[in-house]
């Protein structure tokens, strides 16, 4: 398939994905939990007209090492804060499915779609650790296969809830005194292995109808969920060729077109030597932060060249800067201008990804008006 235009997102994790990133010059670690920090990053992303701003999340504090950057603001809260301050970028918080109620996820993401005027997405994640289960007073944790099956059920019920109000359900009919046409509201009646939800959603259908669902692909379980449910898949892989093979398998399994992005951990400086030095220093400060996907240490020019040569089947990348804001600043000033990306038409995230606005599934099967 064609790779035009190249899709480019960033994942922004506090001071960067590397646990020692907060110690680099320019990191302003005391401000990581303030709105000012996120506003600065949001403004940079917006200036570069990137496609996605992904905010990771989990209920884990992480390591008990006092040197590690620790703690995270709620990802939906960050995305919601940035919604009125941005106009272009897709806002994609991670919301985990293991401990959070699907009904809450449904209304939080739909509401983000309202406050961002149609730019909301949702990245699905599972909570695999006993630490997180303890935080919720649950005993033990289920195996990954089970957690991802539950994630699939969660995506299914959330998508049904997003459809549970037809677009024209609010009628404000003064003559009959009816605010809504209740025939256009639908119970979703989902019965899964681990939970059931009756519906309808409390929140009316959002501007995009269906916000963009992003699923990470890092094992067979998550690959199956991406194939069944994702609009966009993020592939974690050790190299581009493996990622392209995974993308092939994903599309075959899915039996439909979907956007596939490669996860690339990046650290950029003006010279490649400097980038290697900084990365080396980070690993010295905190060894044991193994790459989770392809890693690119270099200059804006080397990254732009690497992105231009992504193998067929990969539509673009989600960049995870190892350090912030330094690498992000170079992505904005040096990488994006070097890529020839056609201007994006439309204002919603689905439009940006060339996806139509879907009709509610209940309207299509309805017809009892």
């Amino acid at each position: 398939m064609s790779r035009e235009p190249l899709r480019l997102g960033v994942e922004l994790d506090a001071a960067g994905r590397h646990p020692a990133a907060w110690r680099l010059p320019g990191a302003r670690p005391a401000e990581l939990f303030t709105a000012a920090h996120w506003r600065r990053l949001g403004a940079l992303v917006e200036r570069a007209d990137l496609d996605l701003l992904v905010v990771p999340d989990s209920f884990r504090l992480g390591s008990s090492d006092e040197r590690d950057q620790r703690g995270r603001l709620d990802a939906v809260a960050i995305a919601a804060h940035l919604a009125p301050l941005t106009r272009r970028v897709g806002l994609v918080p991670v919301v985990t499915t293991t401990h959070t109620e699907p009904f809450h996820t449904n209304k939080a993401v739909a509401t983000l779609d309202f406050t961002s005027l149609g730019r909301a997405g949702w990245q699905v994640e599972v909570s695999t650790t006993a630490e997180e289960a303890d935080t919720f007073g649950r005993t033990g944790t289920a195996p990954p296969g089970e957690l991802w099956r539950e994630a699939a059920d969660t995506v299914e019920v959330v998508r049904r809830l997003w459809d549970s109000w037809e677009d024209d359900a609010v009628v404000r009919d003064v003559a009959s005194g009816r605010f809504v046409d209740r025939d256009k509201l639908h119970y979703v009646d989902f019965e899964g292995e681990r939970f059931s939800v009756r519906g309808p959603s409390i929140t009316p259908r959002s501007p995009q109808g269906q916000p963009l669902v992003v699923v990470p692909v890092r094992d067979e379980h998550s690959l199956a969920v991406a194939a069944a449910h994702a609009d966009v898949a993020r592939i974690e892989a050790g190299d581009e060729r493996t990622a392209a093979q995974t993308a092939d398998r994903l599309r075959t399994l899915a039996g439909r077109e979907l956007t596939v992005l490669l996860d690339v951990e990046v650290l950029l400086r003006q010279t490649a030597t400097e980038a290697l030095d900084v990365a080396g220093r980070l690993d010295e400060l905190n060894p044991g932060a193994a790459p989770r996907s392809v890693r690119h240490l270099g200059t804006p020019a080397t990254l732009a060249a690497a992105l231009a040569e992504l193998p067929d089947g990969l539509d673009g990348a989600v960049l995870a800067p190892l350090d912030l804001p330094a690498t992000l600043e170079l992505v904005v000033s040096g990488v994006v201008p070097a890529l020839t990306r056609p201007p994006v038409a439309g204002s919603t995230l689905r439009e940006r990804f060339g996806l139509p606005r879907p009709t509610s599934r209940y309207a299509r099967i309805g017809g009892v008006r």
Partner: protein
Amino acid sequence: MTRRETSRETPRQIHLGAHFPGVNNTTVWRDPRSGSQVDFSSFEHLARTAERGLMDFFFLAEGLRLREQRGKIHDLDVVGRPDTLTVLNSIASVTTHLGLAGTINATFNEAAELAKQFASLDHLSGGRAAWNVVTSSDAFTGENFRRGGYLAHADRYVRAREVLDVAREFWDSWAEDSLVADPETGVFARGISEVDHRGPQFQVRGTGSLPRSPQGHPVLLQAGDSDDGREFGATYADAIFTMHGSLEAGQRFTADMRSRAVRNGRSGDDLKILPGVTFVLGDTPGQAREHAREIRFQQVGPAQAIAFLEQVWGRDLSDHDPEGPLPAQDPETTSTIAQGRTRMTKDPVETARTWRDLAAAHGWSSRELVVEVTGRQQFVGTPAQVAEEMDTYVQADACDGFILVPSLTPAGLDEFVEKVVPLLQERGSYRTGYTGSTLREHLGVPHPHRLAPAVRATA
């Protein structure tokens, strides 16, 4: 209770909150000026107006299941609303001082998650978060939740107390100076204590994932009026959202709540009493009264009147004439005709009898009766009258201020801010500028970490 001195030079200060009307018949959606209930522009408009009016906070309710009547989704009033915390976080970035209060259910949420969400809002807003804690024992709402519907009615506050206790342990788990963030020594954080809670409802172990937020804890609001609810509020809350209408009823309620607070080792002044009120303004008293009457009859149309009576009568009254007398038959006492809202009367047969007498004495039709008995406290008059009356309530310690419930979305507060706020300022009873930046500073309630440990450590 603490006796308050009223002095002519420095009258007691009025606190004001602005409620975004949710799913009920408050909003006159038939009015051509009525805008969207879900678009962000509506929330932004009301919040900006409240901030222009130097109000303490913006207040948003929540819903977790659409209401039903006779097994069908209630379609006569505003239906549907967005997620409370998401809206508040978006409003945080377009306002600078306004407190951001949201109702969040303590039954269908987990303590660790709530602690993180409210701490996040408090961080991102620079100390403006407030949580109105509500509970539910409702299996109907529980059908939307995986662990819903399991809670016995009597255990609602048992769970709420425990949720709050656990949330407070998470909020307190980072010490004031735990965030070190020193690049030289490499210490990011230290001295974070483990939460290890063993209670009747749940066992939780974990570590707070966020530094202490600007307010320490979000401001806590509470609205329950039962004995349990009052005791819960007097123990935990910084402010009480009440419906006690008249001056005398307000004074009794306020005195009761302040003395309960004192019995719990707090100062009575640390608990702010804020009734929810509607208001209607006019250029003359007569015009205001006429306008108020129009609004009430728009809110209670013929179909709404029947729907309300069905909730009390517990039976299908679709054939009843709303412009005629009340139904002759007695209410069905065991029916659950309406779901997703509280049945408003404990003894429907007695209520029906009282209402028939009332309607007969005044010559009211069914609809007129409903208009009368469902009216909430209203301040109706010229701006000068409303300003004076509100001031009187506060100076007489019937309350500390009000949560204003406008009848129009989103512009229902504009006129109040333009016409009444300046008069309150002239009386010296209302601020002329924000003097603090956090909601605790606006309300004048203490930071939780400056309270004595014995008060904080509630069992």
